[in-house]
Structure formats: structure tokens, C-alpha cells
């Protein structure tokens, strides 16, 4: 075995200085008793924030006192993302601040007596090392050899820094591991991406079709609220999910589809709408391109054909198609969000887009509205240098339809290969735990081993920090300013995040780190503002507001520029596609050599004794980031393995029994997971919530709790269109004894 240049360092091996700082008077994290039982009252002030626990970014109010105690976080009633109600993770966001396992001070990797350790450092020391290494890579290989992985608000500042050096290789796992195929598919069809928050008009819909989207477990706040409102108004919900999800239980029709066969169902629905002439004829004629080709294409994809593939009864397929048609145009076939499933995801999402077009839901009330956002101009700065190369140059011609940088592709291009001009040498990783985020862990680790330098900016000692050369501890969102939120919605609006309390420990906000780094790298010109308040105030002044006003309001709404939330009757619309129409037949895909209309392909099925590894969300957690949050672990402290009673019987499994898993490639789970025997899962699959099974001991609540789905996802079904990583083609079997010990013994 080769020796690692970059051994995983558990942050626990650092000195103890950081811990000494940690002596909060009130220790929620330890579950300690609160000293006084008085109801907090007037002495608590409220400050504006927007939530960072997930990317719905709900705006809220933080109630805190002068001693740095945060009482609670409530939603901002004026915020269209949350309507005054945060989700459990946002409400429990206070746990992020109180977690005593937090990163507390900058760390630098050093070798001592042949052993790699983290040494605590001052900010100056740590930032010097970062600046030096980034400059060195720029000098030796070019600035384009540095990539930024980011998922979160502070990433914008680091993005600016990267651009100032002359690299645009900024990537987020929210593209190639998440919504990428959807964006590519909708861009190809409508000339527009969906983005976030999705502009699905759920509150006014008459029929909501969820394909895998497990709203209610997926707690994207606005959508959950609107779904509930739609239920109240009597909307029909149709859920397609092999698992009896919470959403399925709220649905009039649950279609318990065989996993990996959704495309067949979608094609059959298209077939029914067309052959029964239930589609919106006027809309299709007016707005779409390629209807005749489509009609031809789907002729043979009858419900009877789909039945053999999906196991869904043909009557059920027809009946649900009729439900959609009856509701048209107030119908939404939801585009989903985490859609990187089986590698043909862009094509599946194309089918979703086409279905919506046939139902005439795009641009219609109760379908998809037209969102608007209020952008804030950038603070004036010299133009960023033009990069000489981009990530695409590593393999020209590949993933031309990817709209954003493909994270896994950066990994691939970091592992040196002679036939590539550009190998990445340096990574900046901000707010993304790549170890549990990217599939095929070995590939990620190999890439990391080949780096010359990696800096990780995080709030917690997550697994990724153990591989860093420098760890920069960011303060949590409750302790800092960030750029204002300027997301799209029905009404354009902006939201302010400001610190409610002083940063705990020796932590700093991103904007501060970037400003410092810029100065150490002689890039001051690009960051001419004095501090973030000046920056924000200037930006806000440009749209007729101010920092002072935003502190008061938290959220400010602006009137729409055009009164075009929905299409007018018979409105002429020019779509941003090659044909100016909604492309049922995609000219873009055709030009790139892909199927211009979706075709069903069969996916592999689990071998005997194996079960398909299905995963999803717990409403109380976000990915791996909340697994140590004291308030949220109080609700759910580990994931469990859903097993069908029949399967449990075959294996003589008991409820609550801990078992280990092994996947098709012989990869075994590090930790055991408890069995939950439930009828809500099929006999051919097992299910777990993503984000558990943490392996860093420094995460005192999360360590060893449950199994990481990510470590078992070694088979990646790559989407040829946009580079997305299909992650649902993995199969696991059960190990009743700890397989890891066995290995040590033999």
C-alpha cells in the first residue's frame, strides 16, 4: 500500500487550547440544566437572519440576549420562503451555535516525529499558509489549477477570491449530485432552469404529481407549506415512489413503482395523454415544437407496455393521467430536486418537462409561475481576469450541456493523467463535506491525495476537515453577516443575515477571511470595501434600501417589474430555446448526439440476496451537517434501515437489531445500523436516511451513529448528458456479525 501524503487526522489529535475557550455558562449541548427557569422576556432582542441549515434559506428572527444566549429562532412573517414558520432544522438551528464540538481555532497540518498532526494557529499564521500555497500553485501551474467546492453562503466571497486570481472553477455538489439533470432538461425544453426555490405554484394547484420528491420528509419549507395548503383546498396528490413515503400517505393515488422504472411510467403517461387526446391542444399548438415527432415516438409506450416494466396496473396509469388532464392547466408534475438517480436522469427529467408541456402547466396558475428576483449590483471593483482555461478543457467536448461545473469531474481531473492539459493542484472546500457528499469515496480520496494543497472552511470537525492542510473555522450563520439573499419568488425580495451574537471561540466569518486573504495575495483591488457592513449598505442603497432599513425589516419585498406571473390568454411567448418554442423534441440534445426524445433503458436489478439501497431525508436533519446538532439529535440521533417484514423474516431480523451492510463491490459499512421492520418499504429495497454514520470521533453525538449511505455508494451511474452522478444503482446485503473485526483477525 502506498503511504498517504495526506493522512486523515482526527481533529481530536490537536492540542487542547481550543477546548479551554469552550466554557459557555449555559451548556445546551451537554443537555445541562438551565440555571434559571424564568421565561425569557424583554431582555431578548431580535435580529434578522436567513437560515443556513439548508438552501431554502428561510428568513427569520433570532432572539438573543447580551450574554450571548440565543433563546429561539422564529420565521419572518414577511418572508415568502417560510411565511413566518421555519422547519424543524431551522428552529433547531440554535444547536449549531451551542454545539461544543465546533471547530474553535485555525489548524495547520504539520508532521511531527513522522506523524501528521494538526497544530493550532493564529489566523495570521493559517491565512499566510493558505495565501502562500495558492500563490505557489498559481505560479507553478496557473491559477486555473485551483478549484473551489462550495455549498453555502460564504462561498460567494471565496468565489470572488478565486475569480480575482483568475480561476472560474467553482463547483457545488448541488449540481452534479443534486438538481443538475433537472436544470439541463428544463433548459433544453423551456430555455429556462428551475433553480431555487422552485417556482411551482403548489398552493393553487389542483393536482400535484410527485415523482420521488418526498415532500414532508424533504422539508423544503415553502413547498411543504404549499402542499398542505393544496390539501386543504382539495387538490389531488399523486405520488410515485417505491416507498410509502409521508407524501404517499397524503396522496389520493400512490403509485408504488418498481424502482428505476420511472421513465417507462412517464412515457406511458405521455402516450395516454396523446392517444386519448387529453393534452392541452391549444397550448401545445401555440407553444411547442416537435409534437408530431413525440406522438410517433411514444406510440408503442402504452400503459400495458409500462405495466410489464413498472408493475403499475394499466388502469392506474390511465386513471392518474385522466386526473392530471382534468386538473390541467392547474397541474404540476413536480421536477424534483435531488434527481441524480440512475444515470439517465436528464432524459427522465425531460419526460417530466414534456409532460408538463402537454398539460399546459408552464406559465399557468396552479402550474409553474414565472418567478422574479431582485438582484443586488456588485460593489464596484476591477474586472476579474479572464481565465486561460476552464474545467472543460480537461476533456474537450464532454458535458457541453452541463450548466455548472461538475464536482465529480473536478475530482477526476485532479487525479493526474498524461492525456490531460489541466490537473487540479489546489482545492478550497467551503461548507461541503465531500466525504459524505460525493459518491465513490475512493475516487474522492485519491484526488485529495494528489493535491498539493487543500484548505477547508467549515464550522464543524466534519470528515473532510481531517484531510485538509489548513482548516479555517467559520462562525455559524447566527454569528455573522453574509451577502443578502436575493432568490427568486412570486414577489422579488431580499433578506438580510446579520450576527445575532458575537462569534464564539476563535471563529471568523467568510467575508473576513477572504478580505484578509486578498490582502495577503495582493488582490486588495478586487475587495475595495472596508468591511461587510459597508459592502452591504452600498449594495442595498442601489435598490433604494439600506442596511439600517434591512436590520429593521429583515425581508424587503419589491414590486414585480412586469405583471407576468402567468401567461395571459393567447399570449405570444418566445422561449429561450433554439426554436423559440417549448422543445418536445430537443434540438440541443440532438446536436450533442443524445436522444432528442427520452427513451426507456433498463437498469440493473439487485442480485439474489441483495437489496437496492434507497436513501432519502429525515425531516429533522440536513445531509450530514446536522448529525451532531444537540437539538436535532434529540429528535433523531441515528438512521435506521427500513426492511420489509418478509425480508426480515427471511433473515430472521428483529426490530432494533444492529446489522452491518456490504455492497455489490464488497464495501462494508463501518458501523452497524438498527433494523426497522416496516411495510412501508418494498421487498427488493432497503431504505435509510442520508447523512449519518459519521466516522470522526470529535463529533461526540454523531460518531458511529448509524450507517453512511455514501460509503456504500461506490457504483456511480454517470449521466452522459451533464455529468451527474446517479447514486441509486447500489445493492447491499446484510451482515449479522461485525465484518470489520473479521477482517482484522484474518
Amino acid at each position, binding site marked *: 500500500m502506498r503511504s498517504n501524503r495526506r493522512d486523515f487526522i482526527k481533529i481530536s489529535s490537536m492540542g487542547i487550547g481550543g477546548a479551554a475557550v469552550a466554557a459557555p455558562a449555559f451548556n*445546551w*449541548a451537554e*443537555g*445541562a*440544566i*438551565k440555571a434559571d*427557569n424564568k*421565561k*425569557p422576556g424583554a431582555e431578548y432582542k431580535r435580529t434578522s437572519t436567513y437560515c443556513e441549515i439548508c438552501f431554502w434559506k428561510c428568513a427569520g428572527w433570532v432572539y438573543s440576549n447580551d450574554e450571548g444566549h440565543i*433563546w*429561539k*429562532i*422564529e*420565521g419572518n412573517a414577511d418572508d415568502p420562503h417560510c411565511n*413566518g*414558520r*421555519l*422547519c*424543524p432544522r431551522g*428552529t*433547531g438551528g*440554535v444547536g449549531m451555535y451551542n454545539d461544543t464540538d465546533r471547530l474553535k481555532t485555525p489548524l495547520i497540518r504539520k508532521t511531527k516525529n513522522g506523524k501528521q498532526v494538526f497544530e493550532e494557529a493564529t489566523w495570521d499564521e493559517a491565512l499566510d499558509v493558505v495565501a502562500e500555497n495558492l500563490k505557489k500553485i498559481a505560479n507553478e501551474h496557473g491559477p486555473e489549477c485551483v478549484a473551489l467546492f462550495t455549498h453555502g453562503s460564504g462561498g460567494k466571497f471565496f468565489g470572488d477570491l478565486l475569480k480575482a486570481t483568475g480561476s472560474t472553477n467553482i463547483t457545488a455538489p448541488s449540481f452534479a449530485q443534486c438538481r443538475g439533470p433537472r436544470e439541463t432538461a428544463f433548459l433544453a425544453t423551456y430555455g429556462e432552469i428551475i433553480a431555487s426555490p422552485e417556482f411551482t405554484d403548489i398552493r393553487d394547484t389542483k393536482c400535484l404529481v410527485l415523482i420521488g420528491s418526498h*415532500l*414532508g*420528509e424533504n*422539508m423544503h*419549507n415553502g413547498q*411543504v*407549506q404549499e*402542499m*398542505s*395548503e393544496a*390539501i*386543504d383546498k382539495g387538490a389531488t396528490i399523486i405520488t410515485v415512489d417505491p416507498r*410509502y413515503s*409521508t407524501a404517499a*400517505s*397524503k396522496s389520493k393515488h*400512490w403509485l*408504488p413503482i418498481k424502482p428505476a422504472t420511472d421513465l417507462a411510467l412517464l412515457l406511458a403517461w405521455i402516450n395516454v395523454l396523446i392517444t386519448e387526446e387529453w393534452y392541452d391542444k391549444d397550448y401545445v399548438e401555440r407553444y411547442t415544437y416537435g409534437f408530431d415527432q413525440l406522438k410517433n415516438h411514444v406510440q408503442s409506450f402504452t400503459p400495458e407496455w409500462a405495466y410489464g416494466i413498472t408493475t403499475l396496473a394499466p388502469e392506474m396509469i390511465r386513471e392518474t393521467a385522466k386526473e392530471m388532464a382534468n386538473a390541467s392547466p392547474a397541474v404540476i408534475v413536480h421536477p424534483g430536486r435531488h434527481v441524480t438517480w440512475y444515470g439517465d436522469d436528464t432524459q427522465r427529467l425531460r419526460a417530466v418537462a414534456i409532460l408538463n408541456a402537454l398539460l399546459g402547466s408552464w406559465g399557468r396558475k396552479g402550474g409553474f409561475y414565472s418567478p422574479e428576483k431582485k438582484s443586488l449590483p456588485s460593489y464596484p471593483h476591477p474586472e476579474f481576469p479572464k481565465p486561460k482555461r476552464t474545467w472543460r478543457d480537461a476533456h474537450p467536448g464532454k458535458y457541453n450541456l452541463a450548466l455548472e461545473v461538475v464536482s465529480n469531474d473536478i475530482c477526476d481531473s485532479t487525479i493526474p493523467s498524461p492525456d490531460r492539459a489541466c490537473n487540479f493542484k489546489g482545492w478550497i472546500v467551503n461548507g461541503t463535506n465531500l466525504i459524505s457528499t460525493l459518491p465513490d469515496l475512493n475516487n474522492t480520496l485519491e484526488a485529495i491525495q494528489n493535491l498539493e494543497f487543500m484548505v477547508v472552511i467549515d464550522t464543524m470537525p466534519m470528515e473532510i476537515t481531517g484531510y485538509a492542510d489548513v482548516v479555517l473555522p467559520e462562525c455559524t450563520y447566527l454569528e455573522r453577516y453574509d451577502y443578502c439573499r436575493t432568490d427568486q419568488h412570486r414577489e422579488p425580495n431580499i433578506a438580510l443575515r446579520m450576527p445575532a451574537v458575537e462569534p464564539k471561540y476563535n471563529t471568523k466569518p467568510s467575508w473576513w477571511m477572504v478580505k484578509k486573504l486578498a490582502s495577503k495575495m495582493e488582490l486588495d483591488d478586487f475587495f475595495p470595501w472596508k468591511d461587510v457592513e459597508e459592502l452591504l449598505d452600498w449594495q442595498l442603497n442601489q435598490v433604494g434600501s439600506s442596511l439600517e432599513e434591512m436590520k429593521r425589516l429583515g425581508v424587503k419585498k419589491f414590486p414585480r417589474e412586469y405583471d407576468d406571473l402567468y401567461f395571459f390568454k393567447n399570449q405570444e411567448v418566445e422561449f429561450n430555446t433554439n426554436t423559440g418554442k417549448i422543445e418536445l423534441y430537443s434540438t440541443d440534445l440532438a446536436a450533442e448526439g443524445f436522444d432528442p426524445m427520452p427513451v426507456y433503458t433498463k437498469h440493473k436489478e439487485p442480485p439474489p440476496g441483495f437489496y437496492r439501497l434507497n436513501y432519502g431525508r429525515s*425531516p*429533522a436533519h440536513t445531509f450530514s451537517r446536522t448529525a451532531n446538532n*444537540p*437539538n*436535532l439529535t*434529540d*429528535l*433523531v440521533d441515528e438512521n435506521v434501515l427500513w426492511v*420489509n417484514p418478509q425480508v426480515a423474516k427471511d433473515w430472521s431480523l428483529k426490530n432494533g437489531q444492529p446489522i452491518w451492510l456490504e455492497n455489490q463491490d464488497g464495501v462494508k459499512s463501518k458501523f452497524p445500523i438498527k433494523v426497522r421492520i*416496516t*411495510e*412501508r*418499504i*418494498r*421487498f427488493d429495497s432497503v431504505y435509510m436516511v442520508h447523512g449519518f454514520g459519521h466516522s470522526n470521533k470529535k463529533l461526540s453525538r454523531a460518531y458511529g451513529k448509524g450507517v453512511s449511505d455514501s460509503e456504500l455508494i461506490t457504483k456511480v451511474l454517470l449521466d452522459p448528458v451533464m455529468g451527474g452522478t446517479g447514486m441509486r444503482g447500489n445493492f447491499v446485503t446484510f451482515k449479522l456479525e461485525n465484518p470489520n473485526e473479521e477482517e482484522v483477525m484474518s
Partner: protein
Amino acid sequence: MRYAMAIDTKKCVGCADCVVACQTENNVPIGHCRDWIVENTAGTYPQLELEIRSERCNHCKNSPCVRCCPTGASHYSEGGIVLVTGDDCIGCGACIASCPYDARYPHPEGYVDKCTFCDHRVKNGQKPACVDVCPTHCMYFGDLDDPNSEVSNILKKRKYKRLIPEAGTDPQLYFLI
């Protein structure tokens, strides 16, 4: 006045936001809770039904916990809200043993704690924290004696059930089904 709560099991998604909101609002120590979520699945795949309930003290009209309290710490307050006065409570546990819903717990400081229907908010004209946070708006709170209150209205419109009515406690949590 008769405060009551109705919870729509058809909308509740079991997210437990009500549980965290209660925890922060009322300083419920970590490791403890005043409300909790029950999921009840019936049937065989794929013929399934799921009922999700957010549960808490039922503020029973005929509450054994008040009856069996030796000090009067457990008492009825305005609108029938069942409360515990911490400084009168000796922590004998009689009320805990008497509650068929296991809605009470010994606070680490010794006295017994439970849902208060957020009387400190209700007094100010606000709704309980759990009701106000619920992302699905599936909880209704108000005065049953007022025929126009939110909770009276929803109970007129919808079918409901109560939990363990046979225990004779006359619970005031109504689960819309």
C-alpha cells in the same frame, strides 16, 4: 372558556418542528420533551395507511393528575389549562403515574413539567409555539366555548377522535381524521 387543540392527522407530516419549537420556546432541557410525534402504519405493502399525530398533554377536563396531586401543585388554570406550580411540587410522581398518556416528566430540577398550552403566550393573545411554527398549519388552538373560534369551527367541519377516551379523562386534544 375552554381551551382545546385540534390536530389534523391528514396534514401533519411528522416533522417534529412542534417538538423543537416547544423545546426552545419553553427552555425544555435537551433530552426531554413536552410534545412528541407518533406514526401509526397499518396494512400490508402496497395497501397502506399512515396516521401521524403530534401529541402532548390533553389538558383533560377530568384529569387524574390534578386529582391525585397531594399538594395542589397540579391544578386547573384559566380555560381549563392544566398546570404545575413548580414550587408547590414535591416530585412525588403520583401525577406521572396517573396520566394515561405519559404526558409528564420530572424536570431535572426536580419538579414535574409538562405542556402548558403555552399559557404565557396565550395570555398575550398569541398561539402556542408549536401551533405557530407548524409548517403544515395542521394545528388549531382556541376556545371551545366560543363557537366562532378556529378550533370550534374545524371541529364542526371535520371528523375527529380523541385518545383513550375510555380512560375517562375527557381529553381536550382532538385529532382530525
